[in-house]
């Protein structure tokens, strides 16, 4: 697969540990004849503080790749390092690989924020409670401190006046902004976005993208699966195009989006642009 992988962004100094380093990642769903080989050896390097946008037709494996970066899917082969730490496994002194205890995996996940296509806000909690929940339950923050911080984060995403609304009382765009605030409440070092605007009405897409753009400007490392080419062009440092479980082409947005060399990418762009 290394033949299809372009050299990683020049901006990374050789000494810095990349935020994400995925090597030869395979993911197979199911067993035997019905097995589905979704990822077929993906390499991905995301430098600290950079924004990577993953593009690709549906079924290309881009969402699965994102879920592998957060352990929501267990990879079949390969390795994923986040901030230099191997996800999900450890090597003992003799070099034998061990699966990590679920508690350790939960701790790893708590440093990685994730935003879902369908928001998945906790329906029985208000916006403020949604944001304050994990810091209390995972970090052991006091309720009062967590609520103060949650209020700050809701203000940051422009929803201070919606703190006491339940998700069902918010528009899709507002729900997604609460979901972003909820992920930020854990002070993640990496944020993953899984098609964050795909479930939104067109007029609500902008408000979510604005929040994401602000976040990128603040220096957050982000991996974004999206169909918003405009966002990729303006915000991304690095664009990755996937098809059929492999990375077909990647590079800076100017090169990838304006002068695609791969026919599959040319065809994809002609459909979405």
């Amino acid at each position, binding site marked *: 697969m290394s033949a299809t992988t372009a050299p990683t962004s020049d901006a990374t100094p050789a000494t810095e540990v990349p935020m994400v380093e995925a090597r030869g990642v395979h993911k197979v769903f199911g067993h035997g004849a019905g097995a589905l080989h979704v990822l077929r050896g993906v390499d991905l390097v995301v430098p600290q503080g950079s924004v990577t946008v993953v593009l690709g037709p549906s079924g290309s494996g881009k969402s699965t790749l994102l879920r592998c970066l957060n352990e929501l899917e267990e990879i079949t082969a390969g390795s994923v390092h986040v901030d230099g730490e191997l996800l999900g496994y450890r090597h003992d002194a003799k070099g034998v690989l061990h699966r990590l205890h*679920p508690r350790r995996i939960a701790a790893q996940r708590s440093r990685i924020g994730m935003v879902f296509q369908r928001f998945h806000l906790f329906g029985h909690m208000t916006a403020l409670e949604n944001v304050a929940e994990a810091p209390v339950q995972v970090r052991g923050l006091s309720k009062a401190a967590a609520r103060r911080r949650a209020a700050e984060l809701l203000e940051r995403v422009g929803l201070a006046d919606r703190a006491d609304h339940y998700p069902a009382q918010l528009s899709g765009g507002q729900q997604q902004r609460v979901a972003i605030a909820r992920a930020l409440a854990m002070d993640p070092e990496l944020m993953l976005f899984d098609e964050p605007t795909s479930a939104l009405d067109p007029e609500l897409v902008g408000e979510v993208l604005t929040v994401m753009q602000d976040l990128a400007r603040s220096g957050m490392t982000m991996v974004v699966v999206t169909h918003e080419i405009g966002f990729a062009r303006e915000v991304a440092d690095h664009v990755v195009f996937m098809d059929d479980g492999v990375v077909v082409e990647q590079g800076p947005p100017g090169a990838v989006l304006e002068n695609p060399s791969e026919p599959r990418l040319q065809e994809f762009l002609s459909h979405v642009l």
Partner: protein
Amino acid sequence: MTSHATDTPRAGARSSDLPEPLHARPVPRPGRWVSAVVVLVLAAMVLHALVTNPNFRWDTVWLYLRDVNVVRGVGWTLVLTFGSMAIAVVLAVLLAIMRRSDNPVMRSVSWAYIWFFRGTPIYTQLVFWGLISVLYPRLSLGVPFGPEFFVFDTRDVITAFWAALLGLALNEAAYLAEIVRAGLGSVDPGQAEAARALGMKESRILRRIVLPQAMRVIAPPTGNETISMLKTTSLVVAVPFTLEITYATSAIGTRTFQPIPLLIVAALWYLLITSVLMVGQYYIERYYGRGFDGGATGPRRGAGRKGSGGTGSTGGAGRRAGRLSRQAAIRGAGTTKDDPFAEVTP
């Protein structure tokens, strides 16, 4: 769908927008009046037949309604009902979680428990619990298949009351387990996934995220089961446990040769307790439905004031509030599909 919503008057819109509503004569419906009169007459006949028939001995009913043995019977019935339901709920949650476990031993044991206790009559089970001290005269604590540390006489530990309570609880747990399982299954897996992505442990996810939302589905049938359990406690005579209301009243009825009035006494008490339980059920269901019911409600009561004035970000809080209430009005019209994620454009 949406065009229909536009045609209906908007309850939440600004009042200056409201047009003069249409004034039209309603369709004449004589059938409604005729059917209402017929049903009312029939109801009056039934009531009359109940009140005026001397065989019911309403004076005796009134006398024994407040009899000390009867009221004590009511107390025991309540103890059995709530005691067995409490034990059953705990067991049922355990069984439902076992049923969803990755461990095949847990899954099969839970399945077999539900299979057995749902598959045999409660009356038979209660008889067996009554006979437990004959079947197993000695109970002991110790190493399984090994030495015993404490030995009890079964009759001293499992009295008629405990046999009745456990018998009811173990049977009920099997039914409730299926209700809990359905409730847990009704929660969108995305909820647990979102919690997992935040780094929450599985036990926390179950307790804080999944169970509270499952309760919305679990609470109504559990209320139903509680009301059913109230009446099922009358079967504990099979143990035999003889202090609850049905046995207490029928004993008086036999002694005074007035079985009918005493049956009515028991029935009235059951009715009264059921009515109280229904009120409680309403409030419990409302609590667990928070955040889901209709979406036509405002923000949580007593809240939402502090933010709306000052920090309004772009368009101003007033415009947003108008927008939300319009959404609420559209949803309230009931013409849209019940999807909390759907934003409806008129």
